[in-house]
């Protein structure tokens, strides 16, 4: 897999990033050609949107305001590449707001305004395109979530500052207030990314929310609680960081044990009380409604370096089979009388089998050993879904 992502303003590059093994930087002439082809088409009232090349190469052009984004990838679905481009632009909005982008006249000024954290964020997003789901927030399942959620709500009320509160274990959501889930998933994704990648001690960062408020800045505050666990919140001018820090220390003091036991789920990401079937190598649980997911592997199965490979397979399965709308462009299906839903998917390959079950707003993709008979997969998947969601103490 390789990705090139570049952004140009009137033909001058703002950034030009690459990701992938053994790939070279694109020379400026090439970058300029990609941009000039798009410009040439535009002068003829033609919008150049994408080109496929080679076996699995794809170039995608997208213009936001007067910024041209060009993404070039191999072995990435079109949906993911487009989502990456969209998020890169939104990361820019997050940093400087839409007004400043619209009013931009000078490339150097624009580049100066975009702080280094923006460029780090682009790199991180490119990494996410490969080993994360760009359109979902990663979270964990734990028994403590319900209790912690209660506490989080009272913290949110007590702090009088913000209804947008979320509790993170590394970059995974343990729980969050309802208002936070009301934010667009892209806003959430970028906020969490910004918070976790930032190295500054006192995390008090002005942010524009690309969907919710692209013109007015909020303050994003990050408060570390214990090792690995931190709380994030959005607020206005008040209260100050110091006030919030003191408040949070006092408030969460007596819950450290609770937080610690939630942290234990990491990196399994689901409670130790739930056992996986021996044939299960890993699973991916997605909530389509709140746009969050949990990914995990079965650590009882032989653990070796291929573990991340398994996660990649589940994600590929999700992108290729589950997350594609093959019935989208048809006038048949949008009439009200007819409705079509896909409830299950499966893949059979020489080495693995995958099965996805879609129930209500949940999608559970499970990776199996290849020895399992195809028809038994669906029963195990169903059973696992019941186990994961049956426990009332698990917040989902």
């Amino acid at each position: 897999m390789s990705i090139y992502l570049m952004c140009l303003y009137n033909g001058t590059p703002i950034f030009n990033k690459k990701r992938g093994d053994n790939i070279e930087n694109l020379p400026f002439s090439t970058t300029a050609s990609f941009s000039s082809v798009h410009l040439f088409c535009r002068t003829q009232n033609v919008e150049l949107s994408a080109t496929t090349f080679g076996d699995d190469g794809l170039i995608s052009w997208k213009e936001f305001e007067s910024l041209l984004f060009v993404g070039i990838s191999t072995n990435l679905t079109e949906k993911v590449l487009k989502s990456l481009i969209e998020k890169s632009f939104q990361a820019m909005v997050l940093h400087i707001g839409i007004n400043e982008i619209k009013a931009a006249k000078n490339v150097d000024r624009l580049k100066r305004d975009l702080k280094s954290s923006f460029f780090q964020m682009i790199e991180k997003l490119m990494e996410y395109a490969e080993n994360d789901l760009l359109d979902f927030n990663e979270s964990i399942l734990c028994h403590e979530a319900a209790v912690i959620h209660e506490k989080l709500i009272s913290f949110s009320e007590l702090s009088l500052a913000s209804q947008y509160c979320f509790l993170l274990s590394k970059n995974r959501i343990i729980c969050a207030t309802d208002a936070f889930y009301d934010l667009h998933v892209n806003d959430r994704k970028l906020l969490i990314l910004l918070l976790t990648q930032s190295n500054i001690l006192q995390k008090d960062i002005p942010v524009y929310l690309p969907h919710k408020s692209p013109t007015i800045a909020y303050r994003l505050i990050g408060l570390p609680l214990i090792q690995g666990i931190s709380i994030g919140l959005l607020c206005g001018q008040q209260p100050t960081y110091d006030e919030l820090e003191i408040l949070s220390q006092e408030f969460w003091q007596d819950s450290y044990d609770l937080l610690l036991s939630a942290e234990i789920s990491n990196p399994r990401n689901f409670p130790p009380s739930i056992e996986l079937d021996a044939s299960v190598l890993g699973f991916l649980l997605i909530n389509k409604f709140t746009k969050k997911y949990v990914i995990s592997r079965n650590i009882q199965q032989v653990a070796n370096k291929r573990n991340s490979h398994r996660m990649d397979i589940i994600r590929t399965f999700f992108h290729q089979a589950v997350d594609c709308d093959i019935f989208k462009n048809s006038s048949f299906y949008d009439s009200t009388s007819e409705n079509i839903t896909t409830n299950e998917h499966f893949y059979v390959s020489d080495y693995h089998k995958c099965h996805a079950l879609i129930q209500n707003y949940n999608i559970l993709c499970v990776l199996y050993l290849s020895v399992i008979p195809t028809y038994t997969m669906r029963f195990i998947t169903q059973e696992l879904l019941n186990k994961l969601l049956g426990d009332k103490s698990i917040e989902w």
Partner: protein
Amino acid sequence: MSNASDCSSYSYSPDFKNYIYEDGGSSLFYIRAHSLKDNDYNKNSLNHDQDEIFRHEFKRMSLRQRDKGILSKLTNKKSSGFEFKVVDRQKYRHTDGELKELKVGNKSLKTANLSKSKKGDKRSLFEILFNASIIPGPDNKRLIIDRINTPSIFEKDLCVGDYIKTIDGEVITTDNINHVLHKIIIQKSFKIVAQESYKDDYDASQEEIKITKINDIVANKQKLFNLGSETHELIFSLNIIVKNEQITEDSDDFTTVFSYPPKDNNFLHKQKGSFLTLASILKGSFDKYPNVTSIKVHNTTFFVTYTIRNGDNEFIFLGFNSNYAGLFDSKHITQNFVKFLDYIYPNFIIINDFDQLNSLCEIVKIQLIRNPSEAINFEQLFSCPKFVPLPKEIVLRINDALSELEAMDYRNWNESLMELFGKFNVIGSCLFYKTSLICSHFNELDMENVELFVRQLCLKFLYEMCYVKEMAIWQRVYPKEYQSYNIENDSTKNKVFLLIAARANLMMCVLLEENAYNLNPEVETQSSNYLIYFLEEMEDVMDHLKVVGIENLTKIWINSAKRPQCKSPFDKIENPAHTEHQHLRQIKEECEDDDESEKDLESHIDSQKSSSGFENEDTFYKDFADIVPQTLTFGPENVLYHFTQLDFSEGIILTTINDNACKPPNDILVDIFRRSCLSIHCVLQNTIQFNQLLSRENKISSKTMMLPKEQGMLIDLIVGKQRLSFWIIGRLFGTKELYVCYDSKIPQNMVEIAFRIALNCIG
């Protein structure tokens, strides 16, 4: 061999001779076809000769059945006493026009009253029963509906002019109508099959269209294909651009050799610079070629495909309007079109006469217009013909006939044929019944080329939309795939001819190669004479096939839909929203149907054996009855809805025969199936490609690569109040891809069995 046919060709001097091209006879194009009268897609006109033969046969059948003495005593009853009700109605598309089948329920079985009520009633029994009158047709045998009174159970379904074909499986003639009627009124239910009236088509509107050059197809497209008024939007574009060898100061680096539509109203031509630039950047930076570019103009997306060859000096850009072709279609159409051009031209980049190329582009456009991109026709994307396996006996006979032709073992030996013998080698031959391949002696490469030729020249479409009376085509072709025995070992020096002859529904294609040692410039011009002989010979073979009944047996076999087939699950419930759709489904539902078609075949064989000299009717019958499963599922309900098999090694597609009756906008199930197949196909193709790569390079380049050899999806469809849940599964078997769609109620372990049966039941 018998030449007792009334329509034997011996007495007839072929008309096509006058249309042989003057350039030494390198090509001939001659088609006589009848356009269909009105806009009804489902109507097919009837050919006179054909009809004659059928009538003879049906006459024989009816006699046979009367001899059997299955007739029952006459009883009478007054009309008001009958409570007939149409419980089910079906329409089939038949070669001879639409068949309407009504299943009529009979609530009252008061047969005793019939005689009483008949007294003093001058109406015919038919009129008493159905309140509609019938008259004998022009042949004095068949019965045509003359008047339908109200109320009548026929009101909704039949119209004046339809002829009553069978009642309860018996072929109806003026002789046996009353017997049959008496028989059915004591039954709880019976079936009436009526054939749509054809007389209008036949008399007035059967305008014969003569096509003597490719451009005639384009000129007559309105008549032939029933196309609506032309739109001005760009639907298809072809640009051929070559790099100039010598760059002079006052000229560009590139020259446009050909542009369709003409440069001035082809905005994709104006964009050529972008496409050339992209191609050059990608080549320079990634060492890859671009495949497809999508652009948007005034809210319409266009796909532009690239074909770059001859050391990056020749660029062929094809443009498609996304309202008419999807991304996947565009790629396939491009591949097929370029292959086809390579086949018929030695090098189409440097041809002098672009008129023909223009016509060919027009034909592509015609085919695109007919198929809006909303409806994905998965099976037609591939360059493989749709194959229909026939019963062994028929196949053997066709094989015999083709082999005889290939061996040049002609029936009418004379001096000129003797010369022909040494003049050409036959590379192979194949036989189509309308659009389906029924026999092929080609390897897969030739088959693909022939299929593309037939398809790209609209011949298949012609068969779908028109009644083709006669066809005689030859064309010098340039198969690049194999080199033959000429001295220079240059495929363009080979003189290979593709000959296509058609008589009504049979179409035969033969590839001939002129013997290399015969290449003599002096006699070159004469080859057209030999080709005429050969075409006549081919027509002879087809006449023979017709005379011995092969054509009709094929027709019955295909139309009786004996193959496992898509049975729409929605037919069962009367759904007002879908009655409109239902009539398009050529789907049989109940066991009686199978009985009936079997009876048809049975009687047909009986009627055939006297005339065609089939000797061992027992074996023959067994072949018919046993060879191909009639349904793949057992039990009261059908659970297999659809299947398709792509076989790239043999270059054929197997699918349900009657799927063209499920017209795309109506049959949701078929559309879902095709869309899913397309999606699965892409995944499986990826696996194939990667496996090839692996076998070459022996290293895994991408860690996320998963190579599925099977993909399945469970789909829930809610139509009105009905909910239907079914699996669509695609599986890769070597070079075969098999797709099935079946009811989700079936335990998944049974699927294995289904797969196996489907694989083995290709006849």
